[in-house]
């Protein structure tokens, strides 16, 4: 027995030591606050963090880089917060997560730290999307609204004016495209949140809506069926959209447009900067405008955007708020707009001369963003969005007819709304 102990005990000791050393956290001089976002390709975060740390010695900010897909990052946040984990002090919130995370009690209410006077400085749509149940939960940092990009050079060569209606978009795309090397229109068609954003612009551009004032679903209206049909026809009847869009998220859509494979693209404002970069094949040939709409209706941009919420489980809430309010301020937002592209949330920056040189379309973008419509603000939005994603994807793959998709989606969303009608359902849109 004793001889075996010579083998067993050291082995067990070795294992426990392994665990012990891998579990100990590094000793900090000062406080570290962490949050999760996608890879910092542009270096914007690096610069913002560096400036903040210089002015706030003793506080380190740690950006944990996660996957590009927003769905996956949301799962990562959810997994940590479900466990009451304090890994993330700040939560970099997509606009659609606010209601859900607030409802789950994961966010610190910011009404005191973020008074109405301060809120006025930000775009109204952003503030509205950051509010739920009478409280504000998020400091908006970047705002997004879907825009239509087009190849100025191709349109000018054919002596065509940029389209304003859905029909014009279709006819111009049909005229200018030359598949398979050049397609008419690309957008994010994969079955994920981005598809809902793109679809809502078509839906609202036809004058439809998702949820009415009586908390019932509006997706079986004629406008909605028109929207579903337009999506379907763009792939199968007019054939201006390649089937490959069904695998596209933001990066793939942009890649297709960047390499000159599409005449039109629906994407977020950040794409503008990437198009104008040195190695872009479409540099200087890109125009940007609000999304098309049906005659008589107005164009719609789905509101996107990101901001900081403070985690209830954070052990350094004060320092976290310091960083959050710094990034919400003009200096940091300008750095983001310059380096990363996209639009800042502060109204004042939309007229900033430096940003205007880089983005001459800012005044127009500003108008679009002022009226950008948030997705339904509802703690059960992820489920609602999932229903929309399913049926739009079914329509895009020709597995469901547009009318059936509209009716089925309405039924399913009504079930969700009924099942969950309790307090705080300030659903709109």
């Amino acid at each position: 027995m004793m001889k075996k102990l010579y083998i067993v005990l050291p082995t067990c000791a070795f294992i426990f030591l392994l665990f012990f050393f891998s579990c100990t956290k590094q000793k900090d001089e000062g406080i570290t606050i962490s949050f999760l976002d996608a890879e910092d390709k542009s270096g914007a975060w690096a610069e913002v963090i560096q400036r903040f740390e210089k002015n706030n010695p003793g506080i380190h900010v740690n950006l944990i880089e996660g996957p590009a897909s927003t769905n996956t990052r949301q799962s990562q946040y959810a997994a940590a917060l479900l466990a009451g984990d304090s890994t993330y002090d700040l939560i970099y919130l997509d606009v659609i997560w606010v209601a859900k995370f607030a409802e789950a009690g994961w966010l610190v209410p910011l009404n005191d730290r973020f008074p109405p006077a301060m809120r006025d400085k930000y775009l109204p749509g952003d503030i509205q999307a950051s509010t739920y149940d009478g409280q504000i939960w998020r400091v908006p940092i970047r705002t997004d609204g879907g825009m239509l990009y087009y190849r100025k050079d191709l349109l000018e060569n054919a002596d065509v004016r940029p389209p304003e209606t859905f029909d014009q978009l279709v006819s111009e795309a049909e005229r200018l495209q030359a598949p398979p090397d050049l397609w008419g229109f690309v957008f994010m068609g994969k079955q994920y949140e981005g598809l809902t954003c793109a679809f809502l612009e078509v839906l609202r551009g036809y004058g439809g809506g998702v949820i009415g004032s009586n908390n019932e679903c509006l997706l079986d209206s004629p406008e909605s069926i028109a929207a579903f049909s337009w999506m379907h026809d763009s792939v199968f009847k007019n054939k201006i959209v390649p089937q490959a869009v069904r695998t596209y998220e933001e990066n793939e859509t942009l890649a297709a447009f960047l390499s000159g494979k599409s005449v039109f693209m629906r994407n977020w404002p950040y794409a503008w900067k990437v198009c104008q970069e040195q190695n872009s094949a479409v540099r200087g040939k890109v125009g940007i405008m609000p999304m098309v709409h049906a005659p008589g209706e107005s164009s719609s941009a789905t509101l996107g955007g990101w901001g900081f919420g403070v985690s209830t489980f954070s052990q350094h809430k004060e320092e976290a708020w310091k960083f959050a309010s710094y990034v919400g301020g003009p200096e940091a937002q300008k750095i983001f707009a310059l380096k990363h592209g996209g639009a800042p949330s502060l109204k004042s920056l939309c007229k900033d001369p430096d940003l205007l040189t880089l983005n001459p379309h800012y005044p127009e973008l500003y108008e679009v963003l002022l009226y950008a419509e948030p997705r339904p603000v509802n703690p059960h939005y992820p489920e609602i969005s999932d229903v929309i994603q399913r049926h739009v994807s079914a329509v895009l793959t020709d597995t469901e007819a547009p009318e059936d998709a509209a009716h089925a989606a309405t039924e399913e969303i009504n079930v969700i709304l009924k099942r969950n009608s309790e307090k705080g359902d300030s659903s709109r849109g």
Partner: protein
Amino acid sequence: MTRGKWLTYILLIILVLFSLAPFLWEMSTSFKGRDEVMQLPQSALPQEATAENYVGIFERRPFGRYILNSILVASASTVLALLPAGWRLIRYHR
């Protein structure tokens, strides 16, 4: 070699190529620069081989730490799993 043996070797080589092809393709892609990766037609070997991707993963992420984590987890769980089996071997096949 008999005909049977020839056939066996040929089939095996086809299978090996089938098994290794994605991995080899990935290795080739890892040495291609950003632009080359997205061009058509694709070439089997990189035209302008670059190590920028390998440098990049260590620069942009704490990849060394990730590797260490994997080694720790793999070693610990392997040792733990093998302990009962190892006991039997030590005991009965000395």
